């Protein structure tokens, strides 16, 4: 795979300020044929977490009986008019700021086309003047993907095809449900800066985390509150051409995204290498078949006849409102990762902990003096995203283990108790739990005292341990360990015992 090189595209001076050239960032090696590189842009649609729809006061809610969350406005009944949901605007600004966008005065535009899931046969969206422009997302790898725009629009309804075999081509009729029609959407469009499937997944995953962290969207693929389309083309490695691209839809998970990109890019390369070229078209990802398929061919390219919606007035957020929203932004995933990295976590570890939402827990534990590495390892290996723990208690537990009061096996058992205890509300301190479980939190100095006593009581054995040959030493090690275990009723940590013995020699 090529190194990232300077991307020669026309850029405005503001974009240059916002855009770092990461020539030293490691880019992924894709499986694409030698001499070619992928050029990928990603379009993510995120449903906003509002109570009501974008332009109508019907309920914004996933699931429910068909056509139960509808209102004359979102059904597009004759005579009805749209009114903008202020909360949707606030969330859209918030997401724009989280993506480092410029927030500007914007206008709603009608995108005109006919389809039964479109109540008005036009979609209210944004075209010339979108709300958010010129942003970026920095991936965990350090690479920056530029965001061209993030604009507001309304979602469509859903049509279900009913036919003999359930396949679209044999459909007998279609049924339309308008529950989703009018739900507020943010369409987030990246520049074609992505160069491989892993990078694409990282971008989408990062965006998803930001959407969730800012409470702008649930970001759930399975509920459709987050959808991804990929624009894919290829070009000779190192060139700056932009060749014909295809839009790939029906990608329903990160895994599918990766597979679809790999497949489609290679399909393009195969066409070029056999003297042909890909057609500019929309294709569908077939998960079962592991391939993309051409969409229905259209006689003429869609002409959406965009114009400013005369039923709506511009949205012109004041600088004060924007600052108010900016001030309410939570700490974003990138900063959270940076926090853990500063405590010594490797980037992949930090990414994993943040993704699981456990970074606050780990940071809190570190703050009360817990060992960072140990805390991070526990978060990665022994905790899940749903686990809720008090950070100070977690920190105390980590300290019990590193201090030798608990073996690692014991510590894990206590941790499991803490997790279930926090669920049923019977939270006890780690020391209490350890006591309940019979793991006396053994003081190291107490243990040292016991060992020193034993050494004093067994001078001959000690002499052999210190000065004897290997065989003797081994036997005496066993002798002392046995005595110590007897004296401590088996609660001493074997490793610590050995440490102490070694240190006394």
């Amino acid at each position: 795979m090529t190194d990232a090189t300077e991307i020669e595209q026309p850029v405005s001076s503001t974009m240059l300020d916002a855009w770092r050239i990461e020539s030293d960032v490691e880019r992924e090696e894709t499986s694409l044929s030698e001499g070619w590189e992928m050029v990928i842009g990603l379009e993510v649609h995120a449903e906003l977490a509002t109570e009501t729809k974008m332009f109508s006061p019907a309920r914004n809610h996933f699931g429910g009986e068909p056509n139960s969350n509808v209102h004359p406005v979102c059904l597009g009944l004759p005579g009805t008019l749209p009114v903008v949901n202020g909360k949707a605007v606030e969330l859209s600004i918030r997401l724009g700021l989280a993506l480092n966008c410029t927030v500007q005065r914007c206008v709603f535009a009608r995108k005109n086309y006919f389809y039964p899931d479109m109540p008005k046969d036009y979609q209210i969206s944004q075209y010339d003047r979108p709300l958010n422009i010129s942003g970026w997302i920095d991936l965990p790898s350090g690479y920056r993907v530029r965001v061209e725009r993030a604009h507001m629009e309304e979602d469509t309804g859903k049509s279900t095809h009913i036919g003999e075999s359930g396949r679209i081509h044999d459909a007998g009729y279609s049924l339309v449900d308008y529950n989703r029609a009018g739900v507020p959407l943010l369409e987030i469009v990246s520049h074609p800066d992505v160069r491989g499937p892993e990078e694409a997944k990282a971008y989408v995953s990062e965006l998803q985390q930001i959407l969730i962290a800012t409470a702008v969207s649930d970001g759930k693929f399975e509920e459709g509150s987050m959808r991804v389309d990929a624009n894919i083309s290829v070009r000779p490695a190192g060139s700056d051409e932009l060749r014909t691209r295809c839009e790939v839809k029906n990608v329903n998970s990160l895994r599918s995204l990766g597979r679809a990109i790999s497949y489609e890019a290679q399909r393009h390369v195969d066409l070029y290498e056999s003297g042909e070229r890909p057609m500019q078209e929309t294709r569908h990802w077939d998960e079962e078949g592991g391939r993309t398929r051409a969409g229905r061919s259209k006689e003429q390219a869609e002409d959406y006849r965009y114009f400013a919606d005369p039923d709506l007035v511009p949205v012109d957020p004041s600088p004060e409102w924007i600052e108010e929203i900016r001030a309410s932004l939570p700490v974003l995933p990138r900063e959270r990762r940076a926090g853990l990295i500063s405590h010594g976590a490797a980037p992949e570890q930090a990414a994993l902990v943040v993704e699981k939402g456990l970074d606050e827990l780990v940071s809190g534990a570190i703050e009360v003096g817990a060992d960072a590495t140990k805390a991070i390892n526990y978060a990665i290996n022994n905790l899940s995203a749903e686990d809720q723990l008090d950070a100070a208690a977690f920190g105390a537990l980590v300290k019990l283990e590193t201090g030798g009061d608990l073996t690692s096996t014991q510590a894990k058992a206590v941790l499991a108790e803490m997790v279930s205890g926090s669920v049923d509300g019977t939270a006890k301190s780690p020391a209490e739990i350890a006591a309940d479980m019979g793991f006396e939190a053994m003081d190291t100095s107490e243990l040292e005292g016991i060992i020193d006593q034993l050494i004093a009581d067994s001078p001959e054995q000690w002499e052999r341990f210190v000065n004897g040959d290997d065989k003797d030493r081994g036997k005496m090690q066993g002798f002392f360990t046995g005595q110590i275990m007897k004296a401590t009723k088996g609660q001493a940590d074997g490793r610590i015992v050995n440490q102490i013995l070694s240190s006394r020699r």
Partner: protein
Amino acid sequence: MSEANGGDSLASVSDDESLVLSAEDVAKVADLAMLELTDDELATFTPQLAAILEHAHDIEQLDVDDVTPTHHPYPLTNIFRDDVVEAADVRDEALAMAPDAEDNQFKVPPALGEEM
């Protein structure tokens, strides 16, 4: 008749150069608008629409590039609604007025093509 003013603005040239709009253009536009015209209608509508567009030549010739367009007579901005549910309970009435419905949904002949 006068030539096009500004090469980018007029329709394709047809046999009758006096028409700013050809029958082919009208047929394409009808398609975009989901209308089916008979040959007679095409023959009638084309000159009528052409005459109207001809009349619009007068503004085509205006130099208004540095004039901002008016989308609304009154410069309102930031008209918002609170994010509060207003139950409309309109499902039954809406389905009752539908030409065809099934399973609480609007029923139509098969919709080919992709959702956007």
